[in-house]
């Protein structure tokens, strides 16, 4: 029964994608826990954490795709929302260290003691509670996005103007977070975490659980986004992407539509950041660097924007090759990255998913009458019959 419902909402591609992902996660968990470490199919904890990181990137990629692929707003600042979520989580993990820091102060994190601070700044209050930190990981980026978006969309700043503004936004935050007196650890950021919810953050079991949680959140994000973009709201969003002024003449408040998805997407990026930090064990201002944000956009472009599988695929593929290349030939990576940017925009404007789509199109051309009955294979044009 449930599978029927799933199928109804997600279509063939969506549900099979979810099944494959769920299966892959299960296999990885099994191989990590059940197989001996010298078994050739054993997945080490190092790799598990690495994959967990990719999953967080995939969530970030979906959040970028929601605004870019479905609403035409190219954000070069989503790294900022990701980092803000990360900082919220990092602040909680800092508080959880408690008196085990180098200076043994039960309340103040080490870097504050080092800076001779006597009291916890007000904006650190509440972060000793996990639920509060999680809430903030969503609310802080969403609020920032809301304010920024309210200003930008209201005055109809679009296209590259908006993109550069978002880049300036993350750049400004980069500068701000480098400052020691901001109270976020300055240059070094937040690190040396001990526990998360009482579990040792270094331990393999904790890492495995974090990996699984990331996977689950990604799957939920995927389902949720799928339902969102298939709703009438999502259709209006695509209409805005393709012909913004036409939608206005139909009487839609375009700025509200944009603001909603923009804020939502920022919150989503924040969640990704919050999941990311306990797995990598550090959050510092470099996460705000414009280069990071624009690289995340590339994942979406590689996978195929305006689809939901694309960003996930792109995030995992690009980051996988990054991991391999930077360790094997560190000099070559930036060349490769640059080349991917150029190649994808010129030769693969629809990304990898576009390749599948094209073959799909050909079959469409053969007979229009068939189309009504044809179940489409991929999400981006998997329309349900009315």
């Amino acid at each position, binding site marked *: 029964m449930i599978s029927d419902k799933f199928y109804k909402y997600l279509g063939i591609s969506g549900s099979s994608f979810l099944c494959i992902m769920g299966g892959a996660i299960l296999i990885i968990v099994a191989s990590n826990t059940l197989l001996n470490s010298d078994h050739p199919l054993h997945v080490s904890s190092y790799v598990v954490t690495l994959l967990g990181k990719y999953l967080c990137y995939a969530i970030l990629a979906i959040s970028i795709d929601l605004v870019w692929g479905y609403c035409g707003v190219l954000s070069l600042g989503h790294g900022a929302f990701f980092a803000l979520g990360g900082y919220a989580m990092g602040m909680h993990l800092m508080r959880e260290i408690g008196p085990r820091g180098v200076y043994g102060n039960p309340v103040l994190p080490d870097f504050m003691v080092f800076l001779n601070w006597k009291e916890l700044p007000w904006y650190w209050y509440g972060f000793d509670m996990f639920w509060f930190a999680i809430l903030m990981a969503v609310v802080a980026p969403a609020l920032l996005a809301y304010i920024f978006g309210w200003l930008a969309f209201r005055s109809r700043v679009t296209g590259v103007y908006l993109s550069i503004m978002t880049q300036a936004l993350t750049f400004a935050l980069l500068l701000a977070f480098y400052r020691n007196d901001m109270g976020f650890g300055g240059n070094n950021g937040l690190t040396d975490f001990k526990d998360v919810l009482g579990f040792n953050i270094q331990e393999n079991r904790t890492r495995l659980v974090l990996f699984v949680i990331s996977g689950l959140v990604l799957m939920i994000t995927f389902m949720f986004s799928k339902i*969102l973009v298939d709703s009438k*709201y999502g259709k209006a969003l695509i209409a805005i992407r393709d012909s913004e002024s*036409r939608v*206005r003449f139909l*009487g*839609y*408040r375009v700025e509200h539509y944009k603001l909603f998805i923009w804020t939502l997407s920022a919150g989503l990026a924040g969640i990704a950041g919050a999941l990311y930090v306990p797995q990598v064990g550090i959050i510092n201002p470099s996460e705000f660097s414009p280069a990071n944000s624009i690289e995340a956009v590339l994942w979406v472009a590689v996978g195929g924007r305006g689809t939901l599988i694309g960003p996930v695929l792109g995030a995992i593929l690009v980051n996988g090759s990054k991991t391999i290349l930077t360790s094997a030939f560190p000099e070559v990576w930036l060349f490769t990255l640059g080349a991917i940017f150029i190649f994808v925009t010129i030769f693969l404007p629809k990304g990898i998913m576009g390749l599948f789509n094209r073959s799909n199109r050909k079959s469409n051309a053969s007979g229009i009458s068939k*189309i009504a009955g044809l179940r489409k294979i991929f999400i981006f044009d998997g329309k349900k019959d*009315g």
Partner: protein
Amino acid sequence: MADRKDTVLYLDNISVSFDGFKAINHLSLYITRGELRAIIGPNGAGKTTMMDIITGKTKPDTGTLLFNGNIDLKKLDEVSIAELGIGRKFQKPTIFENQTVYDNILLSLDNPRGVIANLGYVTTKSTSDKIDELLEIIRLTKYKNLEGSNLSHGQKQWLEIGMLLAQDPDVLLVDEPAAGMTDAETADTAKLLINIAKTKSVIVVEHDMEFIRALNSKVTVLHEGAVLAEGSLDQVSKNQEVIDVYLGR
């Protein structure tokens, strides 16, 4: 002239210029409730610009612009004007190319436009019936699930007319609907508009004289951003000035 109270659209002494070029020059035009009005004029006369002004796309430099006699359209943006019930078909058909014919109509239907309303929107039977009915009118039932980009020019014209109908506005501004249509389709369009004008106000811009004749309505001739002549088609086509600048060529 006409009493402001009776008019649906009241344009008085409107002027607009682009970089010094006067596209609309002291234009005055009054449309009453339930009126069908045809507007003709040579290229560049300012017909489309006039529609831009009414729908809020272009702001006039000077003049009065009222809806229903008391609502100042100059102060409103495109969305508010659309919400008041002024709908428009563009000269160059602008539909949503990446969405199906069905979705194009669905998005245009006169339903709540808010974010929340559309997040939880569920298509009811009556809605889909209404869409089917509209699709029948615009002869696109067969292409219901085809993406807009695959339609021909004429089909796109029809789809845009369908979108305008779906919007169900009180005032319809229709810019060159017949371009790209067959003669039979043109005649049908004229009939359709006459039918609509029984309850709504309609402004049509066209170059096709057969079409204008079929509308059998009051005609306004625009030239260089101002009204050159007004009256029945027979009256204006006898007007020497009109012959000189438009019809005679």
